[in-house]
């Protein structure tokens, strides 16, 4: 592990980086992601970003013939950070919502998602009778907003990351966790999530996931859209899909 390199990074970070970027020079593209959302984007013990989002972003960059550099950013500040220019695109399983559309531009969806509950196997939790259960969600996600609107009587607990919500499901602090199908699927099939299973059918579906860009970046959006189409057609997408999920996540 290059500690010295990190030190040098910290030292250079001390200078305010003012980049006077011209619109045409885009050899490197900075991609913002969260890094706490397995299997879509998460960090390994040696500090590497891995996951479906990461591989899709890498494939898209290769298709667009640009160098890509990943930046991790906490979820609750990810859109302000994009707007502030800390990176040029968010590839972090972000749902396309009208509220976000007011702030950012989205590409065409690169996968489709639904919201689903998980709970311990011995629990008789029923999504149609949530009542005053304790429901864990990640703050700032569509799951949080959906739960707030749909289950006004439930005791909602909002966590900074998805991992903490699961950790409290395991300890029994929350009765159930509401989140994206993809992440929940991966977790209940991992050793950590062996405690739990899906409860009922997805409570909302057809939630489209796109790449967020700054409002004025229409040219970049078109390039991303072309690239998404290209990796769909040349089989790269299917290959990445297969590595993470036994089902087709693109939906159609």
């Amino acid at each position, binding site marked *: 592990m290059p500690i010295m390199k*990190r*030190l040098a990074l910290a030292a250079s970070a*001390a200078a*305010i980086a*003012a980049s*006077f*970027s011209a619109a045409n020079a885009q050899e490197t593209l900075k991609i913002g992601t969260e890094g706490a959302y397995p299997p879509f984007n998460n960090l390994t013990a040696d500090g590497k970003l891995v996951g479906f989002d990461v591989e899709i972003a890498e494939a898209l960059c290769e298709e667009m013939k640009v160098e890509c550099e990943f930046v991790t950013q906490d979820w609750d*500040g990810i859109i302000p950070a994009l707007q502030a*220019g800390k990176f040029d695109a968010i590839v972090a399983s972000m749902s396309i919502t009208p509220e976000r559309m007011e702030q950012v531009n989205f590409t065409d969806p690169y996968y489709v998602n639904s919201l689903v509950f998980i709970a311990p196997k011995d629990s008789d939790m029923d999504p149609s009778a949530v009542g005053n259960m304790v429901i864990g969600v990640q703050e700032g996600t569509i799951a949080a907003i959906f739960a707030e609107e749909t289950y006004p009587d439930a005791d909602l607990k909002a966590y900074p990351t998805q991992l903490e919500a699961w950790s409290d499901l395991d300890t029994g602090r929350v009765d159930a966790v509401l989140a994206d199908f993809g992440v929940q699927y991966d977790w209940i099939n991992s050793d950590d999530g062996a405690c739990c299973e899906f409860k009922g059918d997805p409570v909302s579906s057809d939630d489209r996931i796109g790449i967020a860009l700054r409002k004025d970046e229409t040219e970049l959006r078109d390039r991303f859209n072309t690239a998404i189409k290209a990796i769909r057609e040349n089989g790269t997408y299917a290959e990445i899909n297969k590595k993470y999920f036994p089902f087709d996540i693109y939906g159609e």
Partner: protein
Amino acid sequence: MEDYATLLGFGPQGWGDQIASGVAITVSLALATLPIGLLAGFLVALAKRSPEPSLRLAGNIYTTIFRGLPELLTLFLVFYGAQIGLQQVLHLFDPEASIEINSFVAGMVALGAVFSSYASEVFLSAFRAIPAGQYEGAYSIGLTNGQTMRLVILPQLVRIALPGLSNLWLILLKDTALVSVIGLADILRQTGIAARVTRQAFLFFGTACLIYLVLAILSSFAFTLIERRVGRGGQHS
């Protein structure tokens, strides 16, 4: 049962190297903030003891704001607010330009502002502890204002203010942990990631606490050394 030594070690399965880099970030952030905070604190103290009421007012507004706001909120105000503000100012000159305030700089500015407003109080009470005779004596032997400050007052001031400042340094060291919330990979963030991924929360957050304790103990040693040096200087002069 996973092996704790492996988890905290420096191997590919261990988080030791990440945590070490977190320690480096925490320490460099605190060290980078210190001179800014000291200088700003000294200037604010000068303003607050000035015979000029407007200077005193300006200084008091500064300390009221930065001692009244939660440190975490100050951090967010700088991180998001300064970014938006600077961006707009910059766009007046060049619509294409973009400026980035990273979490390290935001931390430095916010913690520096908090540190300086507390430090100004420490300096102020140290100033009060220096008898007027010291100034009068200095002027009577023909020293200018600047010389009096530099040669007569400052050496005594440092000695009197040192315990208060060392306390503020310890607070600064702890406050750097807040910067983990805006994404700087310091001790707390690195141990937090490790805790989430490995699900060994007690091990990693306990380690984080112990590292902060060790840093505090090392700082105390350093301050004892400095105090001894400064104290000895005082006896000779």
